[in-house]
């Protein structure tokens, strides 16, 4: 591997523990006297709770607590990152398949399991809405209690919120070609290999919580609110999550566990089964109607987009997903007239939450597919059409927001070139290309502390969660670069709110840019203190001294930082501490609360072949190109991009929840819900980056890691259609759907 500095790809910091089994995830932690918790649920999407009989359950040896809503403070506390709508345990009725009504804590896992089965919940099934159409029916039952949204005119419907964006005049715009189609995006789940795990324990006069959480500080705030504790009395330990992908951003069962721990006065632990994670987190499904107008020369004239996202029974962060995910819905193009309407629609389904791409892949699937349809209608190459419309650097392609912040044509061209867009295709093969864009973080606040120790080694404190994206390695590389320490002399401390300074969140591909800049600023403060130290030790003026990376430059010579440090600290030793802050303030009046810190821009180009007998799609060559500004760690960038691409192939080709008639999920778990394995990969994957050093992060970096997932589906579907003529506007492209579409195709393959 080429070096450990900026632009090098050293071994992952902390990687050794991950290959030896020493890494401790939440489920690996054992506390003395810890009790085990199991949840009690009803096998129905919605039911009225008539009564709960715990008498048999409490008699199981080892059971210490059976908690129901009645045992909680009244009214039952509610929480949620956007609306305080989610009760700690179901009150009166369950609202989705898997909504817990009670929980058991016992000395052993086995006793908890046994007792949970013995809790008798007398219930009456109620009609449930699990589709957009059913939720919007005027006679549909209301999912949310309208009193939770006082004064909201939408409270009497299942529409939680409606977002509208636009500019120009769509209705007055004249186009040569107008294409209009409806598209569907499936309900899929994160399927992190680490199921969510939680521990809560009384901690002096406060509470300690362990969670596989992406936002430890946000969880701390939620717990403090619910328990009426000062922040300082809520300690959140956040060991590295075993995969997050957005599904571990916001609290799930931590509040329940905290109330249980305080009730029994002992630590309690809950590790979800994989099936239970399907009932805890998912991506919003979506139905999208797109009307695209294109001029004879291939210029986009207008986009008219209506997206109905089916969110779950509780809002979680889903409304933000809808609002932010649909906002760049017209893509990275200059579109003179635009109208976007997106609705967050409540249903009796698992609460949908953040999921890599944050609402963008849904609209992108529809709009990019429709653009390809437009090109076809116009008789124009879909690559050429995109090249003609993609926003040049500096163009305000979303009026009032950050202008185009990269050479996006370059990304498009590189992908086409790497795929061999203009080369002859074998019979039965087809090609597709698509662009994806996502607004980066709109606000942010990250603090970092860097301690340069007496021997020149370094400790970095950063509140990011390293869930696999490699933040720990990137921060270590920055500190090593700035302070001249070998990489293996840098320790990065994360995941403990009592020790590590505040970070807003780990999401939106922000950490390299926002926390990275905070770490950089902390290093620069250390450098400033070293300059003062060198001035004192050498009796010269500070202005004559430059601290540059690992070196202190005096007028007559250069010294390694550690020499100045030793001399400056003297006999007592000690250390030099620097603090860094990175703030991206909110912007009042902006529809998202702030403009994009950067855009994630990706181009995906695919060559596919279809087995017409079976409908099976094989990806022959897969190209993903992302504009990352500058790769601080190129190997990690590649891992993130390829990982995102393969994850995207999941919702494109195989993944979706299946419901029975009553609205229960039929394919819970790994046997009936398939995600890509090593046997489902493209025959060839090529990932590349565009690096112009034009990002706002350290050394010109931009955030990345979601971009490569955004436009997988439209690129693959376009290639499938090009290969065999099958037109499919409903994901995933399962062999059955492809085969059926082939039976119905109107046009012969080319």
């Amino acid at each position, binding site marked *: *591997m080429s070096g450990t500095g900026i632009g090098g*790809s050293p*071994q*992952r910091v902390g*990687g*050794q*523990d*991950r*290959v*030896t*089994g*020493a*890494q*401790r*995830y939440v*489920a*690996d932690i*054992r506390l003395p006297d810890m009790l085990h918790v199991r949840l009690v649920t009803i096998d129905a999407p919605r039911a009225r709770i008539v009564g709960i009989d715990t008498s048999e359950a409490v008699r199981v*040896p080892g059971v210490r607590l059976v908690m129901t809503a009645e045992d909680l403070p009244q009214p039952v506390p509610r929480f949620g990152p956007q609306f305080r709508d989610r009760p700690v345990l179901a009150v009166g009725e369950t609202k989705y398949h898997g909504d817990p009504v009670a929980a058991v804590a016992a000395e052993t896992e*086995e006793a908890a399991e046994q007792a949970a089965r013995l809790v008798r919940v007398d219930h009456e099934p109620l009609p449930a809405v699990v589709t957009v159409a059913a939720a919007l029916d005027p006679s549909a039952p209301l999912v949310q209690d309208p009193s939770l949204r006082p004064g909201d005119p939408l409270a009497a419907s299942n529409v939680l919120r409606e977002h509208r964006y636009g500019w120009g005049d769509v209705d007055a715009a004249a186009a040569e070609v107008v294409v209009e189609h409806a598209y569907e995006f499936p309900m899929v789940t*994160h*399927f*992190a*290999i*680490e*199921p969510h795990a939680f521990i809560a324990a009384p901690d002096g006069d406060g509470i300690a919580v362990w969670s596989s959480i992406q936002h430890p500080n946000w969880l701390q705030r939620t717990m403090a609110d619910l328990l009426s504790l000062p922040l300082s009395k809520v300690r959140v330990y956040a060991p*590295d*999550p*075993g*995969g*997050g*992908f957005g599904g571990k951003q916001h609290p799930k069962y931590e509040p329940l566990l905290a109330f249980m721990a305080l009730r029994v006065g002992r630590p309690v632990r809950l*590790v979800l*089964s*994989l099936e239970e994670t399907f009932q805890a987190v998912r991506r919003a499904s979506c139905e999208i109607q797109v009307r695209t107008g294109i001029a004879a020369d291939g210029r986009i004239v207008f986009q008219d987009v209506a997206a109905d996202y089916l969110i779950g029974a509780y809002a979680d962060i889903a409304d933000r997903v809808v609002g932010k995910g649909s906002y760049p819905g017209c893509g990275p193009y200059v579109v003179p007239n635009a109208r976007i309407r997106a609705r967050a629609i409540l249903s009796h389904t698992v609460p949908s939450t953040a999921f890599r791409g944050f609402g963008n892949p849904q609209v992108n699937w529809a709009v990019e597919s429709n653009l390809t349809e437009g090109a076809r209608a116009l008789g124009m190459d879909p690559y050429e059409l995109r090249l003609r419309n993609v926003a040049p650097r500096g163009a305000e392609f979303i009026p009032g927001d950050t202008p185009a912040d990269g050479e996006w044509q370059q990304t498009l061209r590189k992908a086409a070139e790497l795929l061999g867009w203009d080369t002859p295709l074998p019979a039965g093969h087809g090609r597709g290309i698509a662009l994806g864009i996502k607004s980066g973080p709109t606000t942010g606040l990250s603090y970092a502390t860097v301690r340069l120790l007496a021997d020149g080694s370094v400790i970095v404190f950063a509140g990011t969660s390293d*869930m*696999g*994206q*490699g933040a720990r390695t990137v921060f270590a590389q920055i500190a090593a670069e700035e302070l001249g320490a070998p990489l293996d002399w840098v320790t990065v401390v994360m995941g403990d709110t009592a020790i590590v300074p505040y970070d807003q969140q780990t999401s939106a591909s922000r950490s390299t840019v926002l926390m990275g800049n905070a770490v950089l600023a902390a290093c620069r403060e250390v450098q400033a203190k070293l300059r003062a130290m060198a001035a004192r030790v050498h009796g010269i003026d500070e202005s004559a001294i430059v601290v540059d990376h690992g070196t202190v430059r005096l007028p007559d010579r250069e010294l390694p930082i550690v020499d100045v440090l030793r001399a400056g600290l003297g006999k007592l030793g000690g250390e030099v501490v620097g603090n860094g802050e990175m703030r991206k303030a909110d912007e009042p009046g902006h529809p998202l609360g702030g403009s994009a810190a950067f855009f994630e821009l990706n181009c995906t180009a695919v060559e596919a072949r279809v087995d017409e007998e079976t409908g099976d799609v094989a990806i022959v060559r897969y190209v993903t190109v992302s504009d990352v500004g500058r790769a601080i760690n190129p*190997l*990690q960038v*590649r*891992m*993130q991009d*390829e*990982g*995102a*691409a*393969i*994850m995207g192939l999941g919702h494109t080709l195989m993944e979706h929840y299946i419901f029975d008639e009553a609205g229960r999920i039929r394919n819970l*778990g*790994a*046997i009936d819900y398939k*995600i*890509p*394995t*090593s*046997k489902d*990969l493209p025959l060839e*994957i090529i990932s590349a980056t565009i690096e112009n050093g034009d990002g706002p992060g350290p050394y010109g970096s931009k955030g990345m890691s979601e971009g490569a997932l955004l436009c997988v589906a439209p690129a693959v579907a376009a290639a499938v259609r090009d290969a065999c003529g099958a037109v499919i506007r409903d994901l995933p492209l399962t062999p059955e759907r492809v085969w059926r579409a082939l039976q119905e195709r109107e046009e012969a393959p080319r």
Partner: protein
Amino acid sequence: MSSMIAIQVTVNGRRRSFEVAGHQTLLEVLREDLELTGTKECCLVGECGACTVRLDGRIVDSCLVLAVEADGGEVVTVEGLARDGRLTPLQEAFLDQGGVQCGFCIPGQVMAADDLLRRIPDPTPAEIEEGLAGNLCRCACYEQITAAIRQAAGETTS
């Protein structure tokens, strides 16, 4: 509570004696009784491979093996690979090639890869994809894991 059965298992070279319930899986015993938490628990139906260990010379999903079935047997878990804190060439290769992101599936991947290399010292990419098809990685480091196995194979066969 069901009656307990005494079993003896050699785990990572150490002979261990303990009592288990008849329904307890090897995975539970490794994680709960022996506190060898490197072996991971995810799907519990033998689909994800996170709990892969070596039992009597072949790899198994330890969630599908009853602890009593391992009586008298020899088990190697991920903790049993590195010796004296030194990583095996395979473990090093996983880190060199970027085969590790969140890491949760990695103990299972490493055990499956170790087994593959014992059976096929110089596997082709197709043999690797086949050999590791039972180990899910949601971070999807599949290409890098394949590269890691090729690196390790090159080091041991050259």
